[in-house]
């Protein structure tokens, strides 16, 4: 939300070559001056903007850097959405605006924590209720299909060996200490228990 303000101020400042007035900022963000004033106060408190005489607001060096980053992100997303959707630039620009702040710097972390929390959901197939379960729940010789892999970013090697959602695996060996050998794409891969535990699978049809 605050990032919109910084971007708007940057636009005004670079177009007019002078500090932006509160009214201009409110107009650019389609809001009233009172709301704009409150937000500017917050931004000033964080050291991104400074108030200038005559109800005007200017960016600090820190604010300028952040605003430029937001603007770049906006621009990239706009281009991407255009390419992807084949929609006109204006519509893409609006969508990009609502999207850019949800795109945080640690999406992968959030993604993996999301995947850690997720509970295996029952799936229906030909009337049987099949559960998505950890690979280690299955026995030697079973053929299974990968449903999901937790903490994927840390196991790049699995991905390069072809252990990806949808891939069929055969359990070749399963020791009592939970070390496991899986056959994937015709190759046998030995996997440590803690990594095997992050592979969720379901029985292959």
């Amino acid at each position: 939300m605050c990032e919109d303000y910084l971007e708007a101020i940057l636009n005004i400042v670079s177009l007019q070559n002078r500090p932006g007035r509160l009214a201009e900022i409110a107009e650019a963000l389609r809001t009233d001056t009172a709301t704009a004033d409150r937000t500017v106060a917050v931004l000033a408190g964080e050291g991104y903007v400074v108030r200038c005489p005559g109800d005007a607001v200017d960016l600090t060096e820190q604010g300028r850097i952040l605003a430029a980053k937001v603007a770049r992100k906006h621009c990239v997303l706009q281009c991407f959405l255009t390419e992807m959707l084949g929609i006109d630039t204006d519509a893409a620009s609006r969508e990009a605006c609502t999207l850019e702040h949800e795109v945080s710097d640690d999406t992968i972390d959030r993604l993996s924590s999301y995947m850690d929390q997720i509970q295996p959901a029952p799936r229906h197939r030909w009337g049987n209720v099949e559960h998505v379960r950890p690979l280690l729940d299955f026995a030697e010789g079973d053929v299974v299909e990968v449903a999901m892999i937790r903490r994927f970013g840390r196991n790049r090697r699995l991905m390069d060996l072809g252990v990806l959602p949808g891939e069929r695996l055969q359990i070749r060996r399963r020791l009592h200490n939970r070390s496991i050998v899986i056959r994937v794409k015709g190759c046998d891969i030995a996997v440590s228990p803690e990594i095997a535990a992050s592979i969720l699978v379901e029985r292959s049809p």
Partner: protein
Amino acid sequence: MRLALIGNPGVGKSLIFNQLTGLGVEVSNYPGTTVELQRGNTCYRREMIEVVDLPGIYSLEGDSDEEGLVRRFLQEGGADAIVAVLNVARLERNLYLLLQVAEYGLPMIVVLNMADEASKQGLEVDAAVLQKLLGVEVLLTAASQGKNIEQIVPAALSASRPATVDIPYDHHVEAAIRSLHKMLGADRLASIRALQGIGDDQELLEAARTIADEIENRHRMTIGQIIAANRHNFARQIAEAMVRRPEPPQYPDLDGILTRAISGIPVLVGIVVAMLLTVFVVGSWLEGLIVGFFEVAAIQPFTALGLPPLAERIGVSILVALQAGFGIAFPFVFTFYIFIAVLEDSGYMTRAAFLADSAMHRLGMHGGAIIPIILAFGCNVPAIMSVRLLGSRRERMIAAFLAAMVPCSTRTVIIAGIVASFIGIAAAFSVYLVVAALILLTGLALSRATPGERFGMIMEMVPLRRPKPELVMKKSWSRLSEFLFIAMPVLLAGSVFLGLFEFFGVMSIFERMVEPVTQGLFGLPGYAATALVFGIFRKEMAFETLAILAGTADLGAVLTTLQLYIFTVVTVLFVPCLSTIAALIREVGSKVALAVSLYTVTLGLVVGALIYRILI
């Protein structure tokens, strides 16, 4: 002209490399890494052609040292032509890397190796499909029979060209590639790499990150996962178009024995014990020959020259160092390397690592760490050099630490020569038990105390094969020369220093100084300390020096049972030998080397003193 061989581990790359280059292979470390790079030369139509054997990898976009190295090598234009080697019996998985290599757009040819293995499995391979798709020359070879290997160099010289394939990516990824091209002018390869966070261009990386976040939010999959899945799917399509497989033939499954706990662990133990016994027996016999030969052929004639005492002292020190170096290198290290090369080339090592994985976890490492530990029983130096195979620095440190404590074959000489012969077999075993217990405790403590992330093991079990004798010898030989290269300078310098100390009477001053300490703490005479110091060169020198200083080989006559036992325990635990320290410095850095040395010295002294206190 330089060719580079690139491919998955275990596709026969090294065999091809060896057939192309013959002798004169240079093993070098790539700048800034410990990853080995083999270079060799071959001659074709009077042109000298350099061949580089890149380490086996699964992907160009992974984060392992090897993958980073190959990526850098390709980026920096390290080769004029790429020879991509594939195992045609595991085509689909191998195509995944090939597609990545093809994306780099460097001049290349493709070698589908192991055609013999594929036809044994009843596979019919149509190389023309790949040739048409990639627009590059594709050869079908069988390196183990030398079939079509001679075509590789001519094809690479005359017909290598950039591949023309575009991997069909997910439409989001394709949109991202187009966006990055429009906005920043990035090409397809740079965009794909930037989306996965690889590259140096900060502006491009930032833009790619923004788009990647957006795609990930929509897919609930990481961008790396999406790209990998696209490549794997394409690889599968190609493989299905290329290979016809009638009926998968049934062949005996040796893995049924090797990777089950009930049968596998006895086999593992049996192999290790048989190997150690053989190395020990063959090694001691050869060592006697070599040391004796040096004595008669070099040291005695040299002393007979009657040089001035100082020159004679230095000369003898140098000869003794050479004697020590070769006395370990050929008998123990070389014999051991041969065994290890056989185990590696046969594919057994991966089975051992799988079996040991769970046990190794307790010590803070994964199954692969069984390799340095087994190696250490033969000689600590190759053991420590092998820790580079382990994934993380944390594991490398723990493995190096523990490997340096494992009683190597020369320490076995001491245990056998002193404890077993003067006290008894049971006492000799008790020394092993004490050391084993200390290694376990150290491992448990280290696994808790060492910082760094824990990684599990993801390891391909390479197919079991019969090792090629010439390849085994070549591998062992190149490792042996690496060993000599590390150990010799240290041995020479150390030996000259000690010789000088002795010459100027520093040793006897030292003995007088430490006599009260050794007497009080361990009940040992002062000359035992000198023997300990000499043990730093070559562990069994401690034994020999002790015999010389005691004035008799019948140690039982001059020292009590307790004294002999304590001396042995302290020597076995005390500082790894100089060659080991040199290897430690090279592989894990001087800080860890210092820590290992201090720790083992302290441990040796403390345990020795404790035994003296308890048993007196």
